[in-house]
């Protein structure tokens, strides 16, 4: 039911929008919100309260309270009073069992008693312990508001934007607009954000940018203001922040103050002026300031009969109570005088919306004269204008709280979000929660959807009264972001999981490779037959894409000295064209990474790292370079270079077909590095053998990677070449007992106990980690990383326990079946005493103990003859 057209109305009556409420079609106009259209359709109950499931109706009509939260198009907790109406919108009630009008859970309100006092769940549901699963199921059901749309991750997308601005104005009321205009006139770059709708119309002038509807969520360090603009989170960095958030109308506390039909003045004003609706047919107005009383004229113009106006500044009734029928307001009692009405407009003054200012570091103090908290002492670069600064148009009297007595026995709500009554607060005080911060946590007042907008001040007033002191002494609770409710999806933003692919990736896909993650990299697990891939490497030749290896160029006159000082192994005496392996350690002696280093010429070293270690190692190198200030440059070439490892007894034959380089063992021997063209591609060739067979690592510029790979596969086909993946590589390296940093070592492992004392050159003057390793050597080794061979056929799980005398004493870090050896083999950390050839190990597998024997030397080719051949 709409009133005849009114001068200020926002609706466009020439067009009709259809939407659905609980599946039933409803109508509204452009310019309506979902809430106003529902109100126009006759709906008065908009939600059920959190705890008691009491019916609730429009209270503030400006997005401050919890009363109109609904599910709109699958999104829970939408405040429909500010949500612009869209054609076809699907709207549902939430927090109900049944329907909004008949909610089964509302018995909680009737039976009251046992389930209602604050702290009830804390106190009751801890005993008996074994009933917890039951309690938990119950609590999960009753806790929280709304239902999450599990498919939302796929259908809704959020983004984050970073923006810098000179002046950010928060709030588009009169004061905000004036401030924005003035700043823009001074030539400053200004952005204004406002939570209301209709931005364009209010920001005539156009000299500054308006973002609306959008909500500032908080003010953080460095002038950071995250703004919720729907699907985009804008992180504003402002040089100056102008807060113009206005003031919030405060409810009064009296029995029945939550009944449907009790409204704040702003709600009445918006319903009549903007949407031409009559908020009620007969009204009582009770207010502590001018603003409340000024709605009387509006109500009259809308045809509402005024039953009585109570100006709390002029009279101070001792008793106010509202009574309802079926949750709807039916009458109001003022000092015993009963007034029939269906609308009660209440106002306990206006509280400056200071939260953002408090977050920014402003001091907030209680102004006893006006009965509100006001900001004083603003931090530099933050400004407050308009009502939030305390410039309220007219003074209000501090409002009192009214409680039952006589026959008024209804509940008096201090907090409508969490259904906390004056009784609950009194109980909390009686139990000793006498500080407002403690009481907040216990009673949850100010912790609901309104975030204290409507309950902070009334609860402070009640506290002051109950404790027999004044509001200033009670103080307020800390204001924390977010100031406005925000969906988790917006905070999470779009998934920015980087996936790195090598330049050869597409070829692997064409070959039907099974891919896996290693760090951010997509790598080939296998091409479908890991065992066959292993065999090809042992018997013919295989190729693996190792472009993911970290590749760092260290150059400069001090390069050799730098590496000598950083790595435990020796590099000063490495001849150009030669390669040496080392682990990289920290000053705590721990293994951080490992890889080979090739000396290209006097001043240049080519350092490789593990696939996931590239960034960490290059930062580490850069850092020590900054510390020591040596003549060294560190360049991370990882993404720029592709690499393929060709390994197997026929690798030399294949390479010989593709290069003019003399690949004979005499001129290109194990641990040599050479530069040459392979298949016409300029390559750095490293003769190394991670997989234990004769092998060459070919490094070339990334764009050539795919071509090099394809050519190798083509020209190697008749030699029996097969591409192999990580799974085959893991078996191959395990047969050689080559460690994988991160798999076989953890953040505690050092090179001595990991069985690589030969990389640690204690006779060097200094290297990072030397001191710690010296201490380890002196105290003696406690654990050792050793190879083992199972006596039976079972492959123990990685992470499986080594058991000594019935107690866990170590763990398996790698284990695989080796087809070549026809045995299950692995690496494990064991007590140092067990690190002896043939020592017997017991490994727990599925609750049984399986036997294994320690093997200290590589299982295959222990003397490295194949590597050197």
């Amino acid at each position, binding site marked *: 039911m709409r009133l005849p057209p009114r001068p200020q109305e926002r609706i466009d009556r020439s067009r009709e929008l259809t939407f659905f409420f609980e599946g039933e079609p409803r109508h509204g106009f452009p310019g309506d919100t979902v809430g106003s259209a529902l109100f126009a359709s006759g709906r008065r109950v908009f939600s059920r309260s959190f705890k008691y499931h009491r019916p609730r109706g429009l209270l503030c009509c400006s997005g401050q309270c919890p009363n109109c939260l609904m599910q709109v198009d699958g999104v829970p907790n939408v405040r429909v009073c500010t949500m612009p109406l869209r054609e076809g919108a699907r709207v549902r009630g939430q927090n109900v069992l049944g329907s909004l009008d008949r909610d089964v859970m509302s018995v909680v309100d009737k039976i009251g008693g046992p389930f209602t006092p604050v702290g009830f769940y804390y106190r009751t549901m801890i005993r008996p312990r074994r009933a917890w699963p039951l309690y938990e199921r119950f609590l999960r059901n009753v806790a929280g508001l709304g239902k999450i749309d599990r498919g939302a991750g796929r259908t809704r997308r959020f983004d984050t934007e*970073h923006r810098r601005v000179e002046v950010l104005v928060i709030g588009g009321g009169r004061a905000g607009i004036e401030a924005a205009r003035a700043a823009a006139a001074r030539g400053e770059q200004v952005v204004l954000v406002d939570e209301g709708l209709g931005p364009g119309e209010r920001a005539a002038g156009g000299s500054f940018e308006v973002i609306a509807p959008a909500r500032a969520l908080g003010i*953080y*360090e*460095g002038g*950071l203001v995250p703004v919720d603009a729907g699907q985009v989170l804008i992180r504003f*960095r402002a040089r100056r922040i102008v807060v113009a958030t206005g003031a919030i109308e405060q409810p009064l506390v009296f029995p029945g103050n939550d009944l449907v039909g009790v409204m704040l003045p702003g709600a009445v004003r918006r319903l009549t002026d903007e949407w031409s609706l009559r908020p009620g047919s007969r009204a009582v107005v009770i207010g502590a300031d001018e603003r409340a009383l000024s709605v009387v004229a509006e109500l009259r113009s809308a045809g509402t009969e005024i039953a009585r106006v109570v100006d709390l500044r002029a009279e101070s009734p001792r008793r106010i109570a509202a009574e309802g029928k079926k949750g709807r307001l039916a009458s109001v009692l003022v000092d015993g005088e009963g007034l029939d009405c269906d609308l009660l407009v209440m106002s306990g003054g206006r509280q400056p919306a200071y939260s953002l200012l408090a977050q920014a570091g402003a001091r907030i103090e209680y102004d006893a004269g006006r009965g509100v908290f006001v900001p004083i002492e603003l931090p530099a670069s933050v400004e407050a204008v308009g009502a939030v600064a305390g410039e309220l148009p007219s003074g209000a009297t501090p409002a009192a709280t009214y409680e039952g007595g006589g026959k008024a026995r209804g509940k008096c709500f201090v907090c409508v979000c969490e259904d906390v009554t004056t009784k609950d607060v009194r109980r909390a005080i009686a139990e000793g929660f006498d500080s407002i911060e403690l009481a907040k946590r216990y009673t949850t007042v100010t912790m609901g959807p309104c975030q204290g907008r409507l309950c902070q001040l009334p609860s402070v007033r009640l506290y002051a009264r109950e404790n027999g002191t004044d509001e200033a002494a009670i103080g307020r609770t800390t204001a924390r972001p977010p100031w406005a409710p925000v969906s988790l999806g917006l905070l999470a933003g779009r998934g920015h999981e980087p996936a790195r692919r090598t330049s050869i990736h597409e070829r692997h896909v064409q070959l039907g490779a099974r891919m896996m*993650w*290693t*760090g951010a990299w997509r790598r080939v697990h296998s091409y479908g037959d890991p065992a066959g891939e292993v065999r090809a490497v042992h018997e013919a030749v295989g190729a693996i894409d*190792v472009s*993911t*290896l970290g590749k760092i160029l260290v150059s400069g006159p001090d390069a050799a000295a730098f590496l000598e000082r950083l790595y435990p192994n020796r590099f000063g005496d490495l001849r150009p064209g030669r390669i040496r392996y080392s682990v990289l350690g*920290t*000053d*705590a002696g*721990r293994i*951080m990474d490992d890889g080979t280093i090739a000396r290209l010429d006097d001043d240049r070293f080519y350092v490789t790292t*593990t*696939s*996931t*270690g590239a960034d*960490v190692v290059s*930062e*580490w190198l*850069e*850092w*020590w370079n*900054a*510390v*020591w*200030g040596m003549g060294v440059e560190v360049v991370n070439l990882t993404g720029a270079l592709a690499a393929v490892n060709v390994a197997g007894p026929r690798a030399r034959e294949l390479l010989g077909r593709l290069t003019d380089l003399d690949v004979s063992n005499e001129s290109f021997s194990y641990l040599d590095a050479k530069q040459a063209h392979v298949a016409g591609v300029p390559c750095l060739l490293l003769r190394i053998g*991670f997989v234990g067979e004769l092998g060459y690592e070919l490094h070339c510029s990334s764009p050539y990677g795919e071509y090099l790979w394809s050519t190798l596969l083509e020209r190697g086909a008749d030699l029996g070449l097969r591409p192999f993946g*990580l799974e085959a*590589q*893991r078996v191959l*390296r395990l047969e050689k007992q080559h460690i*994988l*940093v*991160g*798999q076989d*070592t*953890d*953040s505690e492992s050092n090179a001595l106990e990991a069985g690589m004392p030969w990389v640690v050159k204690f006779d060097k003057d200094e290297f990072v980690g030397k*001191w*710690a390793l*010296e*201490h380890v050597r002196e105290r003696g080794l406690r654990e050792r990383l050793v190879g083992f061979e199972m006596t039976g056929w079972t492959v123990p799980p990685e992470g499986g326990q080594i058991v000594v005398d019935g107690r866990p004493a170590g763990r398996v870090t790698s284990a695989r079946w080796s087809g070549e050896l026809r045995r299950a083999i692995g690496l494990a950390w064991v007590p140092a005493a067990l690190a002896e050839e043939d020592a017997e190990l017991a490994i727990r597998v599925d609750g049984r103990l399986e036997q294994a024997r320690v093997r200290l030397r590589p299982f295959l080719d222990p003397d490295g003859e194949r590597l050197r051949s």
Partner: protein
Amino acid sequence: MSFLIPCPNCGSRDVNEFAYGGEIAVRPEARPNVRELGSYLYFRRNVAGVQREWWFHRLGCEAWFQAERDTRTNEVLLTERPRASRDEAPPGPEAPALPDTPAV
């Protein structure tokens, strides 16, 4: 944490672009005993006040630099390229966490 840091190369940028390298402490010159080594490796002054520390502009110029920051307010008072002097040599950033997927 949402403050700004003026990178000596790139100017003022969001803290999220940087990696923290820890407070600057003195690396022993000669071989420390176990106790000294332990305190160099694991003990920090952790002052409530102005502290000199390492920062790395990871999503920018990829340079390490030093900053003086008030740990109470996160106000960065000064940043500069490292002074390469022995006695100011730091223990360094905590050893980076090991990758949880095995690497090759």
